């Protein structure tokens, strides 16, 4: 027995090394020094068996405008999952391929609300119950703040649309507490009052910055991770523990809990990057940390340093992908589901884990720090993040950064081009719910902006583009910038009129195809199809080996370049393929002579493929 015990003890010690250590006392980290507008002090208890939350929060809201605040409007996001009549479920019964489970709905109920002095208030539900309003006894003038005491209880749904539980003991808890909208003065583009919309299927989030102090009580043995830093951990002696977190200058607070989490960490440019993973996904550790390190390093270099002391990357169980691929301040979820069950996904030919990790961390610069309004202008957050992802993936993982599996090779940029080409007549600008289903939203918010910004970079040049992006980020971080702010910055920094980008691509729905329609002995005819116009250039090569690069505005539909003294052999529009939105690159170049060598090369392979298929058809 002793022989058995010794290795068991060693094993237990080693296993214990891999378990999260109790939180160290916070060493007074540097939090961004900005006004804390919406601050929350929350005590919440998780009933892991019933999958419920019971909580109390103290909300303090600072009126930073000069408009008095007469009421308070809350988001009660979990009510989107109460029944099929919610706006969310009416618009889409599924999210990211995961369906809502009627047997495990989610909801939130405010059981009490009062002012800090105990004055009771009455909450009224708005629309489908994902919003609620409370009238304040007297308007709160500019520069002053008000506090509310709110009691609530919530039922977590089975993981769906980013939040909920999976199995017996995995919890990813987002959009879980009564949360105020954003009080804003009126402007050309905004209505005065609370900026808060019901929870739509396509819509994400918008909130003010503030301080969060959250104490989570849950069964002992659970490992927790959250927005912010862990500041205290207490065993309550009754089978529960209370873990406390603190965060400043953040727009939301989410947390995760499971007894199965293992953790590892790496310090990158002074930021503690922590990876919570499940034992069955231990093969993802190095890959996820490498991707996270690359993201924190490059995004920091390109736009500005990551502003928080910690970044948590959370792995999610197989079949709980509804919780994966989401961003919160200081916490992102990733995960890699091996749907084959054969361990195939362990191969590094597929970079989906890296892609998701990099993308979600990219949000930390745009969603979490710039803090765009994702409901009203979703293209800004998702688009900037996806452009950053395309950029980083190509730089770190090479030309086939999404899939590199033998003959099947795919770059992330081309993945986005595939999405875009299916719906090229989609404007980028619009409210999240304006777009036609998830596919239309995907093109408007992700694919087209990623390609449009890549095209902008290709035309402005890398150095100018990075200057545009970093200036914009530095200038507007923590300020909820808009499309107009970006236009102002981009045109100012580049010194160019960027109508083609903003009017043509952001607000416009035109598409374009440039092609060389004819190459004659002394002339080249180029043409544009579609409403979109992007300035480009045409490379004309002559028989004596010389070449000329002709600038072409792209307007007018068709243009003929003539060369009476030279013999043209070929011409190519946009030879550097700067315009990644061109619907067809394949017709951009034309030669007077057929390329016989290449033709033979293709036919050799075609011939072989036919032989190969005939052998399969004929019995191997």
């Amino acid at each position: 027995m002793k022989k058995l015990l010794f290795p068991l003890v060693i094993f237990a010690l080693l296993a214990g090394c891999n378990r999260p250590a109790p939180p160290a006392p916070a060493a007074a980290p540097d939090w961004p020094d900005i006004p804390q507008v919406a601050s929350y002090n929350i005590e919440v208890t998780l009933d892991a068996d019933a999958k419920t939350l019971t909580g109390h929060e103290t909300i303090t809201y600072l009126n930073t405008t000069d408009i008095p605040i007469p009421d308070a409007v809350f988001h009660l996001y979990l009510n989107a999952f109460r029944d099929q009549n919610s706006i969310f479920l009416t618009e889409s019964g599924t999210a990211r391929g995961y369906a809502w489970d009627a047997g495990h709905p989610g909801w939130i109920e405010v059981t009490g609300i009062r002012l800090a002095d105990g004055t009771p208030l009455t909450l009224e539900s708005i629309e489908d119950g994902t919003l609620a309003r409370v009238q304040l006894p007297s308007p709160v003038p500019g520069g002053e703040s008000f506090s509310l005491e709110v009691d609530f209880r919530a039922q977590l749904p089975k993981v769906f649309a980013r939040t909920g539980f999976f199995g017996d003991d995995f919890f990813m808890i987002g959009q879980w507490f009564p949360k105020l909208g954003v009080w804003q003065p009126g402007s050309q583009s905004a209505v005065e009052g609370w900026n808060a919309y019901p929870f739509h299927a396509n819509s994400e989030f918008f909130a003010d910055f503030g301080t969060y102090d959250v104490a989570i009580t849950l069964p002992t043995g659970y490992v927790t991770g959250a927005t912010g830093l862990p500041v205290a951990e207490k065993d309550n002696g009754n089978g529960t523990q209370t873990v406390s977190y603190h965060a400043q200058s953040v727009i939301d607070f989410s947390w995760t809990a499971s007894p199965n989490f293992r953790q590892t960490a790496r310090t990158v440019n002074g930021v503690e990057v922590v990876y919570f993973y499940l034992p069955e996904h231990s093969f993802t550790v190095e890959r996820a940390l490498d991707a996270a390190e690359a993201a924190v390093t490059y995004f920091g270099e390109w736009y500005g340093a990551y502003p928080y002391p910690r970044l948590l990357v959370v792995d999610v169980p197989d079949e709980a992908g509804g919780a994966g691929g989401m961003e919160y301040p200081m916490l992102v979820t990733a995960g890699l589901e091996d749907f084959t069950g054969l361990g195939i996904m362990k191969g590094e030919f597929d970079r989906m884990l890296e892609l998701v990790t990099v993308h979600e961390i990219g949000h930390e610069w745009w969603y979490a720090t710039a803090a765009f309004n994702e409901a009203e202008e979703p293209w800004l957050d998702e688009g900037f993040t996806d452009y950053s992802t395309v950029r980083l993936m190509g730089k770190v993982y090479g030309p086939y950064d999404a899939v590199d599996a033998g003959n099947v090779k795919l770059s992330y940029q081309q993945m986005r081009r595939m999405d875009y080409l299916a719906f090229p007549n989609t404007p980028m600008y619009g409210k999240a719910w304006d777009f036609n289903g998830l596919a239309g939203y995907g093109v408007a918010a992700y694919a087209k902006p990623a390609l449009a910004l890549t095209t902008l970079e290709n035309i402005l040049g890398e150095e100018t583009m990075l200057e545009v992006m970093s200036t914009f980020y530095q200038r507007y971080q923590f300020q909820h910038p808009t499309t107009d702010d970006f236009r102002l910055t981009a045109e100012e920094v580049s010194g160019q009129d960027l109508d083609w980008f903003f009017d043509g691509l952001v607000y416009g729905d035109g598409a374009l195809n440039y092609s060389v329609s004819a190459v004659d002995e002394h002339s080249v005819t180029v043409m544009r199809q579609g409403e979109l116009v992007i300035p480009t250039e045409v490379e004309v090569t002559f028989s004596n080996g010389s070449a000329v690069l002709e600038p072409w505005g792209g307007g007018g539909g068709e243009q003929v370049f003539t060369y009476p003294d030279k013999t043209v052999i070929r011409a190519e529009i946009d030879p550097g393929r700067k315009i990644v939105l061109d619907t067809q690159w394949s017709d951009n170049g034309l030669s007077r002579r057929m390329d016989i060598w290449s033709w033979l090369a293709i036919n050799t392979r075609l011939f072989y493929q036919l032989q190969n298929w005939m052998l399969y058809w004929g019995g191997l």
Partner: protein
Amino acid sequence: METNDENGTLMNADAADKDIDQVSTPEQPASPPISISGAPLPRLNGFRAFGVGLSRSLRYPQLLLVSYLVSLLSAGMLAFVPALMLTTPAHRIAIREAANGIDDWLVIELMESPLASGALGGPVEPRFPDWMNGWILAGLATWLILPVVVWLPASFVTGGALLTFVEGQKFSWRRFLWGCWRWFGAFLLLNALEGFVSQLLFGGLLTGAVIAGIAAGGWLNWVTLPLVALLAMLWLAAVEATRAMAVAGGTRNIFRAFGRAAAAIFRRPLQYFLLYGLAMLLLLLVHAIFRLGLMPVVPLAWWPVVFAATQAFILLRLWARLARWAGVAGIIGMTSDG
């Protein structure tokens, strides 16, 4: 060449072959080409059957030559029209990139061309570029006639090849062509049935396996996929044994031959399992060398090198198939199954 016989005794392969060789001539078409019933023939285990298959396939290079010529001619016929259609895009500069390997951007563009062209305000109906319309038509036509092009020559050659293996005599073009002609119709029918059943059976089985994997969890794939592969191997063995049984038994009734083949496999599963297991391993080896070792280092635009490499691969696969056929013919010839 020396091999071990059933009792572990070294013997000359040609001599071993002679043991199972039977003689028949075109002048005796009504009687079975080999005499089998009641003959006290030695058993041929799976390992030896595989060895015999390999040696016999090498003994008749004419069969490999004919199979290769059929492959060349059939593919040539199929490739002719698409190759002509490619002369127009061969004026596009992008053809150089395509020559180096079809890149992701080109595949995506071609796939989504109808959607994208519809968005350009041009034609009302989304459509492919003109050259591609032609190519698609040619491709569809090729796809439609592919079974005919595959099955006609294959059905023709199989009878002659199997007769050669079953008889084990000096190669005779006359005898070969007689065998080709005699079983052409029967094998054409069998190939059509094989194609139909294979698609139906394995389409259904694979779909079922995938659905089961999704429903019950990926772990189930570890059970279902090897099972499907085993069934596919069994099905291939049954069809190929049917052909060999038909030739060995001198019958053109493929249903009777199938029944006898199935019974033979049922009686001697290990022999067939070993033969087909080894044959599949050989095929896998050939694929691995070609796909993992050779092609990744060959620059695709260097078409003469690509041509040499791909044709070597095709030749090796044809040889592997002939070896398998010869192995089955060997098993049937050495037993009373025929």
